[in-house]
C-alpha cells in the first residue's frame, strides 16, 4: 500500500470509534491476498464512505470489514468489488439496511453471480419505503434470504419479493408474517415453488385478507397431502378460491383432514375423480373429498368413482340434492352407497340375524359385537372373530371378505348359524355321566383309573372341566375336543339346515385355503392340523409324517365317526379320549423334509358307521397317563402350539360357558337354601386356576389380567356381584331379607296390601304400604312441545279414535219406534198373531250409539331402570370442531353424518311420557274414563304411587304439568301398585275396565326381585296381582318396553294380555293400537 495513501486512510479511520479500525486491521491481511492495490483502496474507501454517512453508520462499516474476509473467500475479486459496491450504495442510500445486507451476505453470496448480488441488494431496497416498518420488513428479507434461496431460484425470489411488496401495501405486518410462514411453507410445497408464489400473488389481488389464513391452513394441510400431489392441491385451492368458495382456507383444511385418512398413494386417484366436480359445482368438490373416507371405508376406488358419478348426475338436475348426496345426508346417497358397498356391517344385520338366531335356537339369544365380550374380560380375547358364551352370539364389527355384499352377509349368517349350532346342538350341555351313542364309553373307566391321577384330585366345577382334568396335557385335550365338537356342529348344521349347507361348505373351503401347510409344523401339531382340515371337509391329500401315517389314519377314522350329524357332544368327548391317546404318544418334533408322505382319504361314507375301537384300546388308555413318566426332556420335543383358529368358528370355550351357565342358574335360585351344588368363591378361584381356557390368556400375560379379576368379572357378568355403577337412584343392593310383620297404614293416603308368597303358596298379610301422592308439577310447555313434535300423528290418531265411535254404533232391534221396520220382527209378529200368542209390537230398529263405557287405569313404571338411554348417540355441538387425531376425526365425522337421522339422547321414560301424551289426546277424543299413575318405591313399606291424573279428575293443565315431572325414581314393586290400581278401578262403575301397565319388565325392588329366588317371588306376586284384578272383572294388559331381553315377566305371562316391544320407538304407536284393540 502506498504509504501516503495509507496514512491518510488510517487517519480517517481513526475519526470513527476504534472498532472500525480494529476490524479493518483484522481483515486487511486476508484481502491483500486477493485484491490489487487499487481495489484495496476502494475497499477502505467504501468503508469510510459508509461510516461517514451518519453518526451511527460506523457500525455498518464494522460489519462490512468483519465479513469481507469471508466474502473474499467465496467470490472472485471482481465480483467482490461488485458486492462491495452494491452494499455501499445500499448503505449510503438506506443506512437502515446496510447492516442486514452485510451480515446476511456470508451465508448467501457463495456462488452467486455479480448481477444477482446487485439485484439482491435492490430487492431489499425495493421493499424499503423509508419507514421504520418497511425497514424491518426489508431487514427480515435480508436475514431470510439465505434460507429463501435454498428453496427458490433467484428468479422466484424476485417474484416472491414483488409479492411481499404488494402485500406490504396492505399491511407490513402481514407481509412480514407471510415471509416467516413462507419460510416454513416452501419446503412443503414441493417442486414447483413458482406455482405457490403465483398463487399467493393471485390471492393478494383477489382476497388479501385470506392470505394469512391460507398460509396457516396450507402449513397444516400440505403435510397431509401426498408430496407429488401438493402442487395440484394448491392449484385446486386456487380454483376453489376463484370459484368463489367463501372460506377457502378452511375448506382446504377440511379437505386435507379427509385426505389424511386416505393412503397417500391414493391421493392422486382421488383427486382425479374429484377434480371434474370443480367444473360442475365447486362446493361439491370439497364435500365429495370430505365424505370420501367414509365411502372408502365401505367400497373400493372403482365404486367410489361410481358413487361420484351418481352424485354428478344428480347434481346436474338438482344441485341441492347433489350436495346432500355428497355430504351423505340424503337417503339416496346412503342407499346407493349401501348398494355398491360390499362390506356388511354388524349394525345393519344385527336385527335380522338376532331374530334369525332366536328362531333357530328357540332361546332368547342376543347378538353383540365381539369387542363387547372381550371388554368384559372374562376369558375371551379375540375381538374380531365370532364366538358365544352360551347366551349371546358375538360377531365381528364388519365383514369385508368377499367382493359381493351377499357373500359377506352369507358369511355373517353362516358364522351365526355355527354359533347358534353350538347352543342348539348341545355343545355346552356336555354331561360327564351321559353315555355316548356312537362310541363305547371310556370316560367311566378313566374316572375309576385316575383316582390316583395327577389332576383328578382337583375338584371340577363343571362337567367339562372334570373331563379335561383327566388329561395330563389339558391343552391338547381341549384342542382336540374343540376341533371335533366344532366339526360335529358343522356336520349337524349342514344336515339340519339343508338350505344353508351350500354356503356353509363354500365358507369351509375358504377356511381351508388359509390353513397352514402341515409340513411347516412339528409332528404332533401336523396331526392336529390334519384333524382341523378333516373337520373342514378337506378332500385333497394332506402331508403327514411318514412315521405316523398309521396314527394319522386312525385319527381320521375316529374323527369322521364323531363329526357326524348323529353324534352328540358326549361322542365328541369319547373321540377326544381316543385321539388324545394317539397324539400324546406322538412327540412334537420337527420332521425332516423328506419324511413326509401324502395321506389320501377316499370318501368312504359308510366308514362312519362301522367304527370299532382297535384291539387294546383299553390298555392304551390305561397306560396313557403313565407315559408321562418318560422324561420329556430327553427327546427333542418342541413346545406344542395349539392349531390356528378357524376364522368362521372363532373361540370355543365350553369350560367357561358351562361355568357361566351354572353361575347364572345359581343366581336364579340363590335362596334355594344350602344347595350342595352351588359354587363357592373358592371353587371359582380353583376353576380359574385350572381352566385350560383361561390359562392360555393368563400365561400370555399380555392382557395383564389376573385370575382373580376374571373371577370377579364373571360374577359381575352373571349378576351375582353388581357392578359398582348402578342404574341411578337405587340404594346399595345389599341383601335385605324382608323380615318383620304386618304393617299398618297410619297416615292418610296410605294403603296396605297383602303380597303373594309363592313359596308359601299363601299371601303375606298386610305386607306392603302404598303411599299415594300427587306427582309434583313442572312446566306445562313440555306437553305442548311433545304435541307439536308429533304434530301430524296426533291429528291422525285423533281421527282414528273418533272413528271408533261409529264403529260402536249398533243396530238396535225390537223398538217401539225407529228408522225402519225389521222384517224378521214383522214376520215374528205375524207368526205370533197366527199362532195365537200375544204379538210383539216392537218391530222397529234404529242404529243406536252404544254408550261406550270404558274405564282404564294406566300404570306407568317410573323405576330407575327406565332412565336407561335408548340410544347412546348423544348429539354433539354442531360446530365445525373436528378433532385433529385421524381416528377421532373419523368417529366424529360419522357422528356428524348420523346426526341428521338419529334422534337425540332419549331415555325409556321419555318415550313412555310421549306415548302417554299421545294417548291422552286420543282418549280425550272418545271420552273414556281414565286415570294415569306412576309407581316406584323402595322396600315394602314405601311403594310410591304417584297420581298424574286421577280417574275422576278432569284433564287439565295441572295434569300436563305433572307429566313433565315424571322421572325415573327408585325401584319397582309391581304387585302392590297393581293392587292399588285394581281397587281404584273397582270403585268405578263401568262396563269395561282395563288396567294397562307399561313397564320395562323388571320388577325390581329390595328384597323383591334381585337375581335368584327373589326375582321369582316378584314375578309370581306380579302375576298374582294381575290375576286378582282379572277376577274382579278387570282386564289387564302389560306392555313391556325392553330391548335387551331383561324382561323377567315374560315367562309368567304366556296366557295374559302381554306384549314385549323390541323397538321402543314403536311404543307410542303400539300403545294406541293396543288401546283401541282392547276396548272395542
Amino acid at each position: 500500500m502506498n504509504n501516503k495513501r495509507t496514512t491518510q486512510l488510517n487517519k480517517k479511520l481513526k475519526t470513527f470509534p476504534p472498532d472500525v479500525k480494529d476490524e479493518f486491521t483484522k481483515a486487511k491481511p486476508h484481502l491483500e491476498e486477493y485484491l490489487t492495490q487499487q481495489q484495496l483502496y476502494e475497499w477502505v474507501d467504501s468503508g469510510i464512505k459508509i461510516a461517514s454517512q451518519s453518526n451511527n453508520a460506523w457500525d455498518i462499516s464494522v460489519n462490512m470489514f468483519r465479513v469481507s474476509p469471508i466474502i473474499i473467500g467465496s467470490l472472485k475479486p471482481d465480483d467482490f468489488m461488485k458486492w462491495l459496491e452494491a452494499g455501499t450504495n445500499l448503505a449510503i442510500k438506506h443506512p437502515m439496511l446496510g447492516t442486514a445486507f452485510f451480515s446476511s451476505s456470508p451465508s448467501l453470496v457463495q456462488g452467486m453471480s455479480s448481477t444477482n448480488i446487485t439485484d439482491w441488494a435492490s430487492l431489499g431496497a425495493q421493499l424499503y419505503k423509508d419507514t421504520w416498518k418497511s425497514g424491518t420488513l426489508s431487514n427480515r428479507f435480508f436475514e431470510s434470504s439465505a434460507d429463501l434461496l435454498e428453496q427458490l431460484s433467484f428468479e422466484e425470489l424476485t417474484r416472491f419479493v414483488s409479492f411481499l411488496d404488494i402485500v406490504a401495501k396492505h399491511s407490513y405486518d402481514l407481509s412480514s408474517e407471510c415471509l416467516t410462514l413462507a419460510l416454513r411453507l416452501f419446503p412443503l410445497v414441493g417442486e414447483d415453488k413458482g406455482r405457490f408464489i403465483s398463487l399467493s400473488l393471485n390471492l393478494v389481488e383477489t382476497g388479501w385478507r385470506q392470505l394469512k389464513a391460507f398460509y396457516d391452513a396450507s402449513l397444516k394441510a400440505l403435510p397431509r397431502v401426498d408430496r407429488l400431489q401438493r402442487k395440484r392441491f394448491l392449484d385446486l385451492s386456487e380454483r376453489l378460491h376463484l370459484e368463489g368458495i367463501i372460506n377457502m382456507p378452511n375448506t382446504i383444511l377440511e379437505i386435507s383432514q379427509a385426505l389424511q385418512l386416505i393412503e397417500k398413494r391414493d391421493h392422486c386417484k382421488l383427486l382425479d375423480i374429484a377434480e371434474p366436480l370443480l367444473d360442475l359445482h365447486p362446493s361439491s368438490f370439497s364435500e365429495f373429498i370430505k365424505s370420501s373416507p367414509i365411502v372408502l371405508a365401505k367400497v373400493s376406488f372403482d365404486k367410489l368413482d361410481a358413487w361420484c358419478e351418481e352424485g354428478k348426475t344428480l347434481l346436474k338436475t338438482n344441485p341441492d340434492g347433489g350436495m346432500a348426496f355428497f355430504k351423505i345426508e340424503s337417503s339416496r346417497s346412503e342407499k346407493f352407497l349401501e348398494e355398491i358397498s360390499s362390506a356388511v356391517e354388524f349394525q345393519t344385520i344385527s336385527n335380522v340375524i338376532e331374530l334369525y338366531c332366536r328362531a333357530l335356537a328357540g332361546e332368547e339369544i342376543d347378538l353383540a359385537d365381539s369387542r363387547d365380550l372381550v371388554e368384559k374380560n372374562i376369558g375371551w380375547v379375540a375381538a374380531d372373530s365370532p364366538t358365544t358364551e352360551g347366551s349371546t352370539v358375538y360377531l365381528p364389527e364388519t365383514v369385508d371378505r368377499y367382493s359381493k355384499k351377499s357373500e359377506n352377509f352369507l358369511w355373517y349368517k353362516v358364522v351365526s348359524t355355527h354359533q347358534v349350532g353350538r347352543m342348539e346342538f348341545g355343545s355346552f350341555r356336555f354331561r360327564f355321566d351321559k353315555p355316548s351313542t356312537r362310541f363305547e364309553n371310556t370316560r367311566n373307566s378313566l374316572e375309576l383309573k385316575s383316582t390316583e391321577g395327577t389332576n383328578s384330585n382337583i375338584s371340577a366345577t363343571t362337567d367339562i372341566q372334570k373331563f379335561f382334568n383327566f388329561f395330563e396335557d389339558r391343552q391338547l385335550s381341549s384342542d382336540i375336543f374343540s376341533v371335533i365338537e366344532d366339526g360335529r356342529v358343522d356336520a349337524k348344521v349342514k344336515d339340519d339346515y339343508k338350505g344353508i349347507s351350500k354356503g356353509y361348505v363354500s365358507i369351509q373351503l375358504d377356511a381351508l385355503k388359509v390353513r397352514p401347510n402341515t409340513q411347516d409344523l412339528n409332528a404332533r401339531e401336523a396331526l392336529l392340523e390334519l384333524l382341523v382340515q378333516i373337520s373342514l371337509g378337506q378332500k385333497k391329500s394332506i402331508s403327514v409324517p411318514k412315521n405316523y401315517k398309521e396314527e394319522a389314519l386312525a385319527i381320521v377314522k375316529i374323527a369322521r365317526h364323531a363329526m357326524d350329524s348323529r353324534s352328540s357332544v358326549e361322542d365328541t368327548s369319547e373321540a377326544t379320549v381316543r385321539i388324545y391317546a394317539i397324539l400324546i404318544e406322538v412327540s412334537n418334533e420337527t420332521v425332516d423334509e423328506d419324511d413326509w408322505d401324502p395321506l389320501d382319504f377316499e370318501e368312504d361314507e359308510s366308514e362312519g358307521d362301522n367304527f370299532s375301537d382297535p384291539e387294546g384300546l383299553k390298555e392304551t388308555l390305561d397306560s396313557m397317563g403313565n407315559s408321562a413318566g418318560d422324561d420329556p426332556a430327553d427327546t427333542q420335543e418342541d413346545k406344542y402350539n395349539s392349531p390356528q383358529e378357524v376364522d368362521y368358528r372363532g373361540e370355543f370355550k365350553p369350560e367357561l360357558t358351562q361355568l357361566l351357565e351354572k353361575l347364572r342358574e345359581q343366581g336364579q335360585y340363590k335362596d334355594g337354601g344350602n344347595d350342595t351344588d352351588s359354587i363357592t368363591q373358592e371353587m371359582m378361584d380353583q376353576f380359574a386356576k385350572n381352566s385350560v381356557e383361561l390359562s392360555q390368556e393368563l400365561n400370555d400375560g399380555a392382557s395383564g389380567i389376573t385370575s382373580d379379576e376374571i373371577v370377579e368379572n364373571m360374577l359381575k357378568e352373571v349378576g351375582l356381584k353388581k357392578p359398582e355403577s348402578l342404574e341411578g337412584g337405587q340404594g346399595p343392593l345389599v341383601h335385605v331379607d324382608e323380615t318383620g310383620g304386618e304393617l299398618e297404614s297410619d297416615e292418610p293416603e296410605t294403603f296396605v296390601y297383602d303380597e303373594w308368597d309363592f313359596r308359601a303358596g299363601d299371601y303375606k298379610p298386610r305386607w306392603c304400604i302404598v303411599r299415594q301422592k300427587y306427582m309434583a308439577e313442572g312446566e306445562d310447555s313440555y306437553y305442548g312441545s311433545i304435541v307439536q313434535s308429533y304434530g301430524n300423528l296426533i291429528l291422525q290418531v285423533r281421527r282414528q279414535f273418533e272413528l271408533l265411535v261409529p264403529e260402536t254404533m249398533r243396530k238396535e232391534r225390537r223398538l217401539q219406534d225407529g228408522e225402519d221396520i225389521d222384517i224378521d220382527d214383522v214376520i215374528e209378529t205375524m207368526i205370533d198373531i197366527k199362532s195365537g200368542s200375544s204379538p210383539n209390537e216392537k218391530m222397529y230398529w234404529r242404529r243406536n250409539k252404544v254408550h261406550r263405557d270404558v274405564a282404564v287405569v294406566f300404570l306407568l313404571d317410573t323405576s330407575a331402570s327406565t332412565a336407561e338411554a335408548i340410544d347412546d348417540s348423544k348429539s354433539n355441538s354442531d360446530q365445525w370442531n373436528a378433532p385433529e387425531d385421524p381416528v377421532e376425526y373419523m368417529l366424529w365425522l360419522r357422528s356428524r353424518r348420523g346426526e341428521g337421522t338419529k334422534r337425540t339422547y332419549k331415555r325409556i321414560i321419555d318415550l313412555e311420557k310421549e306415548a302417554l301424551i299421545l294417548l291422552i289426546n286420543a282418549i280425550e277424543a272418545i271420552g273414556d274414563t281414565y286415570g294415569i299413575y306412576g309407581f316406584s318405591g323402595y322396600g315394602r313399606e314405601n311403594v310410591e304411587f304417584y297420581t298424574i291424573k286421577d280417574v275422576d279428575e278432569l284433564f287439565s293443565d295441572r295434569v300436563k304439568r305433572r307429566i313433565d315431572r315424571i322421572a325415573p325414581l327408585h325401584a319397582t314393586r309391581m304387585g302392590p301398585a297393581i293392587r292399588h290400581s285394581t281397587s281404584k278401578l273397582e270403585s268405578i262403575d263401568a262396563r269395561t275396565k282395563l288396567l294397562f301397565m307399561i313397564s320395562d319388565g323388571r320388577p325390581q325392588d329390595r328384597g323383591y326381585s334381585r337375581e335368584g329366588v327373589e326375582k321369582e317371588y316378584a314375578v309370581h306376586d306380579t302375576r298374582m296381582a294381575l290375576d286378582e284384578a282379572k277376577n274382579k272383572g278387570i282386564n289387564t294388559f302389560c306392555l313391556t318396553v325392553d330391548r335387551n331381553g331383561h324382561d323377567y315377566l315374560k315367562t309368567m305371562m304366556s296366557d295374559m294380555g302381554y306384549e314385549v316391544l323390541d323397538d321402543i320407538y314403536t311404543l307410542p304407536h303400539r300403545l294406541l293400537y293396543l288401546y283401541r284393540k282392547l276396548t272395542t
Partner: protein
Amino acid sequence: MATKTSNSTKTLYQSYVIEEYHLKKEPYYVPVGDEIQLFEAAYSQRIPVIFKGPTGVGKTRFVEYMSWKLGVNLTKVKKEEKPGEERQQDNLPLVTIACHEDLTASDLVGRYLLEGDRTVWIDGPLTRAVKAGGICYLDEVVEARKDTTVLIHPLTDHRRMLPVEKKGELIEAADGFLLVLSYNPGYQSALKDLKHSTRQRFVSIEFNPPPREIEAQIVSHEANIDIDMAMRLAQLGEKIRNLKEHGLGEGASTRLLIYAGKLMAAGIKPRRACQVAVNWSVTDDHSLQNSIEEVTASIFE
C-alpha cells in the same frame, strides 16, 4: 256336506252359515298328546269341553275325528244291546257353528217360519244337536252375542236342558249330546272374554302345535308331499314359533304349513311357497319377514 237350513226358497230372513256334518269316512287325525283319552273320558261323563289353542292346530279336525270315533263306539254298544235296532249313521252327528258377533240365541235355538197360512217351527242347529244327541261345536264362541250364554248355561250343568223360549219348552238333551266350545286365548278384546261362570262349566283341553315329527307326518299326509319336505316344513314351523314373543301374534299354524306343502306339491319352489304361504301370512312386519326369510333360506335350498 254342509246343508243349509231347509226351506231356503221361502226364507225371508237372513240365514247364517251353519255346518252340519255327517262324516262318511274317518277323518285323518294324529293325536299329539292324551287329548283323545281326555275327550273320551269327558264325553263318557258328559262334561262339556273347551278347546283352547291357537288357530290351525287341529281343533276342528279333532272334534270331527272324535265325533266319528265316538259314534262308531256308540253304535257298537247299541248294537250289542239292541241287536234289532239299526242306525243309519255310523257317527255321532256333529253340528259346527262358526260364531260371529251377530249370532243370537234364536239363531241357535230356532224360530217360527210362515208357510202359507201356517206357521212352522224350525229347529236351530243347537236344538237339532240337542235332540239328536250329537256334538255341538261352537267355534270361536267369544265372538257370539252375550245372550247365547243364556242357552249355554242350563245345557252345561246337571240339568242338560235347552230352554226354547218361543215355544215355552224345555228340551232335555238327548243322551249323546255334548257341547264343545273353541276358544283362542291370546289377546282378545276385553269386551269379549269368556265369563268365569261360563268357563268354569267346561273342562279345557289345550291344543298346541305338535312336535316336529308328528307335524311332519300330518303335513305330509294332508299336502301329499314326501316326508323329508314335510319334516323341513315342520322344522320351519317350529323355528317361526320361537319368534312368538317378537311380534308374531301367533306362530305359523299347521294349516299354513300344509298350505305351503300343497303349493310345493303343485310345483311351486319351496322357498317361494313358504314365503307366500307362511312368512307373509304370519306377519306384516318387515324386519320379522326378513328374519323368517333367512330361516327359510337356511332350511330349504
